[in-house]
């Protein structure tokens, strides 16, 4: 009896601490974004705002370069994701359905690229982007993001395609369909939910990328959200505009969180097969 009570207490204690640890920073971001700056910079801190205001949001949305960075992020993350999905659905079909020489090596290369250190291509990409004249443009980011979005999409989509029974392919083959037709008319429609989940994760990864975005852009012509948020600056090193930073963080985080919650099951599938399931 006593051990039961003890283990129940331990259970709820770990649960409570865990949830607090996970959720508090998120809560703190939202609460701080709604505080007027007088309250933001007053000790002792208020854990629930005494006065709610949308001033920080107004300031963020009036900031042209921040709004522009959101647009840039959509173009870059969307572009990299669409291109990756298009190319990877073909590759995934070949890997899931055919046996051919070199398949093993292909899988190793694709998987190996998921741990690829971005820094190893940074110098090469930087000089290359400048030589090609695409430095500080969308293309520099879209193309460089495909280093990680493309292998990721191939890997995850391959496991989704494998779940589709291949009797459907056989039936289509007997009807005289070419591989290309099977891919477009049979596989892609059936892999719809998998494509959405894969695309979403790839989009989130590209949306959140920082090192390439920081290095391959110079100003808000192509600068993305993570760079804009990281480079928010105030009058001096010690006077960062925290109200604005928390509001901007909320603006870019809440949509992603909502998307993740809506597609929770698929996202979890994508994440687990992306890393471990193999």
């Amino acid at each position, binding site marked *: 009896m006593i051990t039961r009570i003890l283990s129940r207490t331990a259970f709820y204690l770990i649960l409570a601490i865990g949830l607090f640890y996970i959720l508090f920073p998120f809560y703190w971001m939202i609460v701080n974004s709604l505080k007027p700056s007088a309250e933001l910079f007053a000790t002792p801190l208020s854990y629930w705002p005494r006065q709610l205001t949308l001033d920080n949001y107004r300031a963020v949305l009036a900031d042209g370069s921040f709004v522009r960075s959101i647009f840039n992020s959509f173009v870059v993350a969307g572009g990299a994701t669409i291109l990756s999905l298009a190319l990877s659905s073909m590759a995934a079909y*070949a890997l899931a359905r055919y046996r*051919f020489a070199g398949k093993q090596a292909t899988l190793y290369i694709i998987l*190996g690229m998921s741990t690829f250190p971005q*820094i190893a291509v940074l110098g090469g990409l930087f*000089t290359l982007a400048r030589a090609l004249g695409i430095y500080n443009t969308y293309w520099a980011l879209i193309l460089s993001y495909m280093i990680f979005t493309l292998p990721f999409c191939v890997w995850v989509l391959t496991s989704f395609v494998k779940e589709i029974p291949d009797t459907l392919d056989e039936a289509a083959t007997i009807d005289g369909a070419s591989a290309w037709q099977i891919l477009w008319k049979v596989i892609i429609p059936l892999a719809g939910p998998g494509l959405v989940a894969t695309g979403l994760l790839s989009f989130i990864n590209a949306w959140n990328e*920082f090192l390439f975005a920081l290095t391959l852009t110079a100003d808000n012509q192509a600068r993305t959200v993570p760079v804009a948020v*990281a480079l928010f600056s105030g009058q001096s090193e010690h006077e960062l505009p925290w109200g604005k930073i928390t509001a901007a*963080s909320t603006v870019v985080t809440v949509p992603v969180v909502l998307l993740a919650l809506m597609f929770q099951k698929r996202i*979890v599938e994508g994440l687990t097969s992306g890393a471990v399931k193999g």
Partner: protein
Amino acid sequence: MILFKRAETLAATHARTAVLFLAPTFLVLAAVGLYPLSRTIWLSFTDANFFADEARFVWFDNYIDLHSNPDWWAALYNTVFFAVASVALQVVLGIAFAMVLNVNFTGRKFARAANLIPLVIALTVASQLWKWMYHDVFGVVNDALLRLGLIQDPVAWLNNPSTALWAIIAMSTWKFVPFVTLLVLASLQGIPKELYEAAEIDGAGPIARFIRVTLPMLKSAIAVVVVFRMLDALRVFDIVYVMTGNSPATVTISMFARQQMIEFGLVGAGSAASVEIFLLIILGTMVYMRMLKVEDR
């Protein structure tokens, strides 16, 4: 005989289609991955920099300089320390939390959904957020610890060399515990219930069941998670760049390489550091792939 011939042509058709379908992916990966990588390797053997037009081939000079640079070794030490400490914390907390979420209780759905939140927040956004929480005057960490009486005076967590790295480790742990939880949870659900029932009949208590049944069943999943997280932690850049900038107490190898290359304009020297990071990660990736056993797919 005829059948044999037909089978052969079918295989040949498949192989041709496979090559055709994989070609675009490989072309792109070669252009954006392989080519810049070989360029980085080439540059690491030259004295290329932003200030001179012509780069000279200097053999291993950049590597020799790198190894005699104490800043490189300090950055390597910081990186390894960060990776080991944060992954260890993530794995221990992640397993604990996965065990909790594997139990049936009201609100489990909510808890599992909440678990996803840190995972999808951009690393730079999360880093800014934690930087604000660590603020020496207006940060919530100091405020809470002062109220609880755990510290007497506010601490400048990120400016103090003895706390900065630990502050970053705590942040990274928050960001990635949910990832470990997710993966451990997936393999916990694969453990047959009969094993626990059998252990209970044998008189094993909850702790014995965890050590004798759960841990051995999770062993391979945990090993994979550890290597995967280590490979990611060794590449750490965003968190440190945002939270402490180029402060020597926390600078990592990726930051060192980028600083040499982009901020100092020493492309050759920075490339040499990049190549060493690449080799380190490739070595780890080989271990990782052996664990996953791609053949089984």
